[in-house]
């Protein structure tokens, strides 16, 4: 059974249908890039998976946990899948270390010492062991995003959703974040990422999903998608992205 299972997902904002029936099955260990024009529904799809958006119809499950919109079920689902945001969304009133410890203590009921050990481990993993006591506003954008990744990792999710994690970064900071993501992929983490980094998608991902007008328009291994796009829409998109 796939780790992430999305069946006939529909999502509308008022009259506007943003997702028009998405089927997507993600096996454990897959690294998937979701590409497409803005407004094609890729971020919405990601946000539906962990219940940040309410869905209109269809079914989603992660690691066997069905998406059901009450607090108890959502909590169980969200323990299986972490999310990284474009704007990092670190808690500004807490240090990097406390950011990584908070949900461990509150949600997983870990003791402080245990949470701290875990936090130091994941902070080392993203290369920020020495920034444990820094506040977010003392860190660069790239460092903040790596703390956000550490924060998600500390909850030991089965999969990570990455929503344009490098789009808010200065160009020179993109590399350090992608390097961390690449290392996660190499370690076998299941990743579902909305991205504009085509080179990265080509290099790291096992599958690329091209979304167009609320549907999965084309999907396949990056070699095929980028070298051999079948639909005119994908051809146009890749042409634009390359230009």
């Amino acid at each position, binding site marked *: 059974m796939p780790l992430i299972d999305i069946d006939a997902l529909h999502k509308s904002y008022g009259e506007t249908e943003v997702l028009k029936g998405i089927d997507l099955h993600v096996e454990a260990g897959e690294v998937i890039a979701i590409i497409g024009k803005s407004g094609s529904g890729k971020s919405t799809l990601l946000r539906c998976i*962990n*219940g*940040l958006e309410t869905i209109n119809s269809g079914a989603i499950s992660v690691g066997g946990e069905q998406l059901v919109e009450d*607090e108890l079920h*959502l*909590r169980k689902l*969200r*323990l299986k899948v*972490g*999310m990284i*945001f474009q*704007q990092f*969304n*670190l*808690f*500004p*009133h807490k240090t990097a270390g406390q950011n990584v410890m*908070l*949900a461990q203590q*509150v*949600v997983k009921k870990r003791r402080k010492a245990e949470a701290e050990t875990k936090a130091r481990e994941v902070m080392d993993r993203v290369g920020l062991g020495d920034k444990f006591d820094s*506040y*977010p*506003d003392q860190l660069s954008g790239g460092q903040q995003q790596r703390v*956000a990744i550490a*924060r*998600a990792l500390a*909850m030991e999710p089965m999969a990570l959703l990455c929503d344009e994690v490098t789009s808010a970064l200065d160009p020179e900071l993109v590399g350090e974040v992608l390097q961390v993501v690449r290392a996660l992929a190499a370690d076998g983490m299941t990743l579902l990422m909305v991205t504009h980094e085509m080179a990265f998608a080509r290099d790291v991902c096992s599958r690329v999903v091209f979304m167009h007008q609320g549907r999965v328009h084309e999907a396949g291994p990056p070699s095929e998608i980028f070298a051999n796009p079948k639909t005119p829409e994908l051809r146009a998109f890749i042409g634009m992205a390359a230009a």
Partner: protein
Amino acid sequence: MTQFTFWDIFSNLLLATRWTILLSLVAFVGGGVLGLILLFVRIGKTWWLRRIVQGYTELFQGTPLLMQLFLAFFGLGLLGINVSPWAAAAVALILWTAAFLVEIWRGCVDAVPKGQWEASASLGMSYIEQMRHVVLPQALRISIPPTVGFSVQVVKGTALTSIIGFVELTKAGTSLANATYESFTVYGLVALIYFVLCYPLSLSARILERKMNAAHRH
């Protein structure tokens, strides 16, 4: 007829100032507690409770404090409940203060970026956990300058209670002015005392605001 020296006037005003301070404190603390309770309802999940609190704040913000004092004093009297000016003043001011603080604080909760809710939700936190660990600590910081600033309005608001006969600074001033015919001296002193009470508050509100902006988080 007794002669009033300047010192007599001043000391009498200072004695009455105690009541202004006490009433301000009661209004602010009472209004703060009530405001906090109402805040949780206002940002809570039950829509009809939210509407009730919204109606309450609109009512109290949309009518003069003076009318609220009259209603508390005479209105309750009409219902056969005998209220002292002190009780009527305290009740009206607490309700009035709460109505403003709810809206000030709701604005502060709203000012916490949506991303903070989403990040904490995606980490599995429940609504109460999000509130307690992520949103309220940030809202609290944002709220300190406007809350301290509003306390100035509360102090000045107590002056209106003189009209229902509560003897605080303004009422004492009126009586002294009538007795001494030295209106300018008396009201000048009254104004000065209010200023001495209020200026440190508005000054600290300004300093706090600058501090929060500079080091906005920790």
